[in-house]
């Protein structure tokens, strides 16, 4: 009798252990993965849309061609919603950094950072193409 009870208790214990492990896995996945992925993916999408908007009339490449980093920073500030921190780096076709000034609006204190890679070509008769790396985060 005692041996049988011991067996049952062990099964219950094992079951409880499994339940606890799965519960903790489910809760942690729900808290970290889902929310982070949703937020960063949304930010990346916003970033891409913003760059597309600036590029639609050739403004983006024009600012880079003219090395007008101040206007580029202001344009991003204007188009991006308040509370989104950004940091933009421009590379030429040899992957050398082009921007001499920092094109950013603040510190990245958030752990949730989205990354957008964008290819941009100029419309002017002097042809240049650039690769843009844009990092975005929700400012805290």
């Amino acid at each position: 009798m005692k041996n049988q009870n011991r067996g049952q208790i062990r099964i219950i214990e094992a079951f409880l252990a499994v339940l606890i492990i799965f519960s903790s896995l489910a809760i942690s996945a729900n808290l970290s993965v889902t929310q982070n992925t949703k937020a960063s993916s949304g930010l990346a999408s916003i970033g891409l849309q913003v760059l597309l908007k600036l590029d639609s009339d050739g403004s983006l490449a024009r600012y880079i061609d003219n090395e007008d980093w101040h206007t580029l920073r202001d344009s991003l500030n204007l188009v991006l919603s308040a509370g989104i921190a950004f940091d933009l780096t421009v590379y030429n076709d040899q992957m050398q950094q082009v921007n001499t000034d920092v094109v950013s609006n603040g510190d990245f204190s958030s752990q949730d950072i989205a990354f957008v890679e964008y290819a941009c070509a100029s419309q002017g008769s002097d042809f240049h193409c650039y690769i843009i790396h844009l990092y975005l985060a929700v400012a805290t």
Partner: protein
Amino acid sequence: MRRCKRRFGANSSGQLLVVAALSIAIIISSTTIYVYELSKEAKSRDSRSITDFIFALKQATRNAMISSLADVSKGGERAILEDNLNNLSQVFMNLHQFGMCYLSFMVFNDSRYDSGICLSWNTNNSGASSAYTNFTLKLDHMMTDIVVDYAVNVTTTVVISGSYTKLEGEEKLVNLTCQVSDKEEPTLAKKITLFYEDLGSWIPINSSNNLSVADYGNGTYLLSFTISTLSDVQVSAHVHDVREIFVQANATCTEA
């Protein structure tokens, strides 16, 4: 009594095992469904981002075409189009966010297009500058390869028509309508320079010809000026559109 308890204990142990197994099975299947739903959601977000990314790459090829046409229309070599697109193709290979990216292209050639460029400036009353290229964009994505075929046609057209009224002596007042369009849509001109023909040479029209320009804001411009010539009134409009693409159109004005 003791036998009964033993029997009950043995039975309960079996039932408990079945219940435990069932619970574990439910937990495992719930977890599987949960992970599947998560991955499905991530996949749909991913495909939306890829669609935007492909749109951005198409935008870059379009800008390269505009840049090349602007250059060729102002006297550059036609080979510039292929050079620029090759350059862009190399840059695309440095993009890695959505896997390897390959761009191949075929510039359009026919009776009108040479090396993907058509400069049709000799047609009476109208002129067109155009670039046309077929592209294949291949994205070696982690999950699946994406191949997109598309064509880009960049065209600026200028249509002019005009009439003149005789003033004193040889002097004539010319009214010219100039319409600038980007394919079928009206577009704005950045700069319009006018010339008239006198004794076989083209003479620029400027403020000394009482030049006035009315901009209707929809790609239509009404230009008025006076000229002194004995011959027919032949005018030429040299237009740079907002994208810096140059187009030229010639017209013979009729007496109103």
